[in-house]
């Protein structure tokens, strides 16, 4: 089997408009990424607060780099910080072409701290936050 890699990044949103419009923008991002990821064998999870994104992408290196590069060129966010990029043994989100994780109250300060520089422990905490939410959602998913 091909070596899997995982990247975790966070960034600031540039989605325009009020809550409804942002929700539509987010829906678009999720749909597009689910379609792309299903076609290229990537899985992952996206966390969004009112102003910040955190996303995990995992899969074969080549598809991962190509998708990451496309995300980098996206104008709907900026100030991108990569918190983690490494080879992994197994996927964290094997059943999700792109899970959506609404953040719990503890996630926002963690994300903000991560964007202000220090990686390391934040990467683990964000990943844990993404996990917790997705695990909860997994129960309700088919």
């Amino acid at each position, binding site marked *: 089997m091909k070596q899997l890699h995982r990247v975790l990044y966070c960034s600031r949103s540039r989605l325009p408009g009020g809550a409804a419009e942002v929700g539509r923008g987010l829906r678009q991002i999720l749909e597009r990424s689910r379609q792309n990821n299903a076609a290229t064998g990537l899985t992952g999870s996206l966390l969004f607060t009112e102003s910040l994104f955190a996303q995990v992408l995992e899969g074969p290196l080549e598809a991962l780099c190509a998708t990451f590069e496309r995300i*980098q060129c996206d104008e709907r966010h900026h100030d991108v910080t990569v918190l983690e990029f490494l080879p992994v043994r197994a996927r964290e989100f094997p059943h999700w072409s792109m899970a959506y994780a*609404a953040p719990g109250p503890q996630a926002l300060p963690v994300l903000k701290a991560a964007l202000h520089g220090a990686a390391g422990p934040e990467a683990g905490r964000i990943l844990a936050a993404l996990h917790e939410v997705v695990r909860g959602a997994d129960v*309700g998913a088919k």
Partner: protein
Amino acid sequence: MDRITPDLATLLDCAPPPARPLAALIDGIPQPVLLIDADLAVRQLNGAARRRLGLVDAPARGAPLGRVLEQAGEIAPAEAAVLLAQARAIVAAEEGAARGGGAIRLTGRRLSPRLWMLTLAPPAHPAFSPAGRCALTGLADRAAFAASLARLLQRAEEPAAVLLVDLDRFKSINDTLGHPVGDALLAAVAGRLRGCIRPRDLAARLGGDEFAILLPGCAGEADAALLARRVVEILSRPFLVRGHLASIGASVGLALAPADAAEADELVRAADLALYQAKAEGRGIWRRFRPALNERAQARRALEADLRRALPLRQFHLHYQPQVALPERRLTGFEALLRWTHPARGSVPPGEFIPLAEEVGLIGAIGGFVLRAACAEAAAWPEPLKVAVNVSPLQFERGAELVAAVTAALAESGLPGVRLELEITESALLHNEASTLATLHALRGLGVRIVMDDFGTGYSSLSQLRSFPFDKVKIDRSFVSGLAEGGQASAIVRAITALGASLGIATIAEGVETEAQAAALVQEGCGSAQGYLISRPVAPENIPALIARAGSGAATEFVP
């Protein structure tokens, strides 16, 4: 499920969005757009596409693209064949790419596993040369860029803008991760640039890590500035290339025709001056050309001309600042400091001419002069007084040359190597560790002592102190000036001296100006000091008297 916000819960199921006909969506797009599936059947096309292709009626849903193109009144049969081939290539490659050099181009983008969006791009600007591509990036090369710019400006009826883009920190990525990663990074940079520009603009790779963008019909600064800002921002975002995470940045210089220059050469020179300014102001920014930059460039050229003559005209000389051992303030040696006195300019500060000398390649010759003069002077001092000489990071990069210059200076003067100290800054150590280490060892093989200058201001770390054979670290003046107030500066000085003591590395503090600072340095265990409190730098003719007063190394307090 309780953590999922209710209004966003729908996002989790993959149900299609509320029905909104795709046709209505793409009809809102001003560019001619077609949606095709993997079998090259047309699923949708918008009004702009119908007009551009010259279709009287909307084709039936699912009509083969080939037949639709045949019916298009605005498309010649030969062109239809080319477009069909382009569409096929786009679907086969599964990714969007502009192809072909005909009167009309297709760009494609995959929307879903079985759906592609094709955009009928307007042709590239007629002035742009189709030939001359950079093989690595697919962008225009330098010659094609120059030819396109010249042709564009000859037409003269429309304004234009040139952006010159220089990558920051590319060299170190190339050095540390290797050329294949560097090449992949350049290709990714090209991809991002391509994504920033309109179809009629031209992006080029001029060579190395220099890129350029030509914007025809760009009348005002606003549009070009928007693009410049976008380029700076998007290239500062991280890259994942070949399994590596790479962070670079970009500086951008901008010039507009005809406002800033009317001729191609002049326009590029203006953009280059703006780029130079962006880099001088700290990189990672864009700057537009200003006439003042021309004046500054002229002033710089005049300074360079004078600097080139300074060595043969013997306008350089050295002053020497005493260094003393603490706490007794016994004279141990001098730091040699370069002075340039120009007949018209007067005394030119080193901060002005040293960076220029480094830039124009004079630093090796000037550094060689300093080594020879300092060693000759020191050979006349009583033993064991030492002389410390500053070495530029650029001298250090050419290690073999530096070792040869030091060897020659010692041989000519007869000064024993142990009485020469070379002060190098941390930045000299950042590149190419293996060859740096080899140079340091070769210098120590001559008996020379190595001092790390400005310690604590840059990237120095414990590991660096451990892996490089330093004899001494010089504590930067910024910490010394904060010493009397206690607090962080004291803690840093204490850490450095403690570290030095445990690794067997001596410490010296520079910029010592007050008794309080000297007392604090003694308190923190710092071994030596220099600064105005001890003595200002002195001319060589005053040194013998100074040494005599100091008791030539006797353990008497140094009183200048």
